[in-house]
C-alpha cells in the first residue's frame, strides 16, 4: 500500500506531480524536496520577463504556502538529497533526517552544461538555470554594457533579446553552421536569426572557441580560432543541459541519456519513477522512440503522468511534445517532432507569420512548427498538436489552404 510518497526535485515536474497526486485521490503523506530555498517556481520567465521587466523580478511561484498547506504537501526546501537507499526505501538528506518512501519520484531536472575551454571558470562565465542566476544576470545587463553569449540555442537567443531590450549590446557565438540547430527546422531558424540581426545582435556562426581570457580592465575576451576575438562585460554560456541523474546512477538505476524510464515513467526499480528533464522515455506516438525533452510542458505532463503511475492509474505516455520560445514580439512554437517528417507543407498566415506541417512518409502528421506574433500562430499550432495526438493523416492540400479551417479537419 502506498502511504508515503517522496518527490525529489521541486521544479515544474515535481510540483505538478505533488498536486496531481491529490487530484487523483492520494491521501497519504507527500514530501516535496527542493534544493533551492524558494517555493517551487516556473523557469520559463528566467530567460524572458525576469530579465526584461521593469520591476525587480520575483519568482513566478507554482505552489504558494497556502496551496501547499491546502493540499497537505510538505515542502522540504533548501535540502540536498544525498542518496537513495533502495533496500530501506529511504531518501537520505544532508543535515536532515532521512525520508522514508513507498514510492519515490525523481524530478531533479537538468543543469547547464559547463563550457570546457581553457580559461573558462566561475569568475568569467555565467550560466542561466535558476532564479538566483537570472537576478545576477539582470544586474549585469545594464544599458551600454556588452553581453557575449556562447551558444545560439533558445537560452542564448532569449538572453540576447533580453539584453537588447535592456539597452545592452549582444553578440551570439555559435559553434554549428546555423542557429537553433538541434530542435528547429532551418527555415524557421532563419526567421529568428534575421530578426535578431535586425535588432542589432551580432551573430557569429561556425566558430571554434580557443579560450576565455580576462582583460586587465576586468572585461572578458572570447578567443576564436582564425577570427577576431570578442570582448564583453559579461559572458554567458548557453550550450545545452545535462540531466541531473547522479542520485539514480549511484543507486544503480538504469541510465540512458539521463534516467531510463518505461512508458509509465517507472525506472528499473518499480518503486522509483522519474519525470521531466532528468529522464528519457519511450514515446508511444513515435513508435517507442526514446526521447529526453527539456521543456516546460513536458515537465508538467510528466508530473501528471508519473503521479498517476505511482498510484497504479497510469497509462503509456503519449502527450504530444510542445514548446515555445519568445524573441522580441515573435514567438516560435513547435508541436510534435518535425524531424520525423518526410514532407513539409506550408500554410500561409496573416502578416509575417509562418506555419509548417511535417508529414511522415505514410501521410501521418507528425510535427508542426510556426513562428510569428503569438496571437497569429497559437491557435493553429494547438489544433495541429491535437491532430498529431490523434495520429491524423490530413489532406495536404487542406493543410496548405488557409480557407480550410484546421478545426474542420478534426474528426
Amino acid at each position, binding site marked *: 500500500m502506498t502511504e508515503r510518497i517522496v518527490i525529489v526535485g521541486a521544479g515544474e515536474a515535481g510540483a505538478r506531480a505533488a*498536486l496531481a497526486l491529490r487530484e487523483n485521490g492520494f491521501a497519504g503523506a507527500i514530501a516535496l524536496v527542493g534544493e533551492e530555498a524558494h517555493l517551487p517556481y516556473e523557469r520559463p520567465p528566467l530567460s524572458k520577463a525576469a530579465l526584461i521587466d521593469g520591476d525587480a523580478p520575483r519568482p513566478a511561484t*507554482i505552489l504558494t504556502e497556502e496551496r501547499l498547506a491546502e493540499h497537505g504537501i510538505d515542502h522540504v526546501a533548501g535540502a540536498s538529497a544525498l542518496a537513495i537507499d533502495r533496500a530501506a526505501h529511504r531518501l537520505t538528506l544532508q543535515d536532515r533526517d532521512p525520508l522514508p518512501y513507498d514510492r519515490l519520484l525523481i524530478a531533479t531536472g537538468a543543469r547547464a552544461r559547463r563550457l570546457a575551454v581553457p580559461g573558462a571558470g566561475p569568475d568569467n562565465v555565467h550560466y542561466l538555470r535558476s532564479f538566483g542566476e537570472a537576478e545576477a544576470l539582470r544586474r549585469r545587463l545594464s544599458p551600454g554594457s556588452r553581453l557575449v553569449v556562447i551558444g545560439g540555442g533558445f537560452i542564448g537567443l532569449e538572453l540576447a533579446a533580453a539584453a537588447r531590450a535592456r539597452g545592452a549590446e549582444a553578440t551570439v557565438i555559435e559553434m554549428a553552421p546555423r542557429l537553433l540547430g538541434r530542435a528547429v527546422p532551418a527555415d524557421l531558424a532563419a526567421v529568428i536569426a534575421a530578426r535578431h540581426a535586425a535588432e542589432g545582435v551580432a551573430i557569429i556562426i561556425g566558430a571554434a572557441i580557443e579560450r576565455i581570457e580576462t582583460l586587465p580592465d576586468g572585461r572578458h575576451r572570447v578567443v576564436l580560432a582564425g577570427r577576431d576575438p570578442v570582448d564583453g562585460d559579461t559572458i554567458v554560456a548557453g550550450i545545452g543541459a545535462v540531466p541531473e541523474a547522479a542520485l539514480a546512477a549511484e543507486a544503480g538505476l538504469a541510465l540512458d541519456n539521463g534516467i531510463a524510464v518505461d512508458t509509465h515513467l517507472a525506472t528499473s526499480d518499480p518503486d522509483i519513477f522519474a519525470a521531466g528533464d532528468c529522464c528519457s522515455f519511450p514515446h508511444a506516438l513515435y513508435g517507442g522512440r526514446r526521447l529526453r525533452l527539456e521543456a*516546460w*510542458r513536458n515537465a508538467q505532463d510528466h508530473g501528471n503522468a508519473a503521479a498517476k503511475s505511482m498510484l497504479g492509474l497510469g497509462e503509456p505516455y503519449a502527450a504530444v511534445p510542445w514548446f515555445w520560445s519568445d524573441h522580441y514580439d515573435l514567438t516560435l512554437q513547435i508541436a510534435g517532432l518535425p524531424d520525423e517528417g518526410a514532407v513539409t507543407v506550408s500554410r500561409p498566415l496573416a502578416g509575417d507569420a509562418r506555419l509548417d506541417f511535417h508529414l511522415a512518409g505514410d501521410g501521418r502528421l507528425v510535427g508542426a512548427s510556426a513562428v510569428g506574433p*503569438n*496571437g497569429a500562430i*497559437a*491557435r493553429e499550432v*494547438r489544433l495541429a498538436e491535437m491532430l498529431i495526438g490523434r495520429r491524423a493523416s490530413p489532406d495536404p492540400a487542406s493543410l496548405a489552404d488557409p480557407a480550410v479551417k484546421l478545426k474542420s479537419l478534426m474528426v
Partner: protein
Amino acid sequence: MPTAIAASWVEACAADAIDEEDVIRFDHAGRTFAIYRSPDDDYFATDGLCTHEKVHLADGLVMDTIIECPKHNGRFDYTTGKAKGAPVCVDLKTYPVRVEGGKVLIGLD
C-alpha cells in the same frame, strides 16, 4: 445565460461576427474582454486576459465550453470563469450577456 444585474449594457459586436464555438476580443473604455459563442449558440463574456501571464484569450482556442490560453494552454470554462488546471489557478471574471436585434451586449459593473 447569466442574469446578473449589470450597471450598464455595452454593445460589443454583431451576433454573427463570432463563429459558433469561437471567441473574439472586445476592447472598451481601457479594458479588454473576450466574447464567446458556444456550440449551442449561447453567448458569454469574460475578462480578456489570462489570469496567468496576461495574454489575450481571444487568440486562444475554444473547444466546447473551454477557452484555452494561446500562450501556455491554461484552460477556463468560459461559461463560469472557472480555472480548469495548471498553469492557471485564478478564475476569470465573467460578465452577463444579452443578444438583442442581432447585437451582443455585455453588462459591465
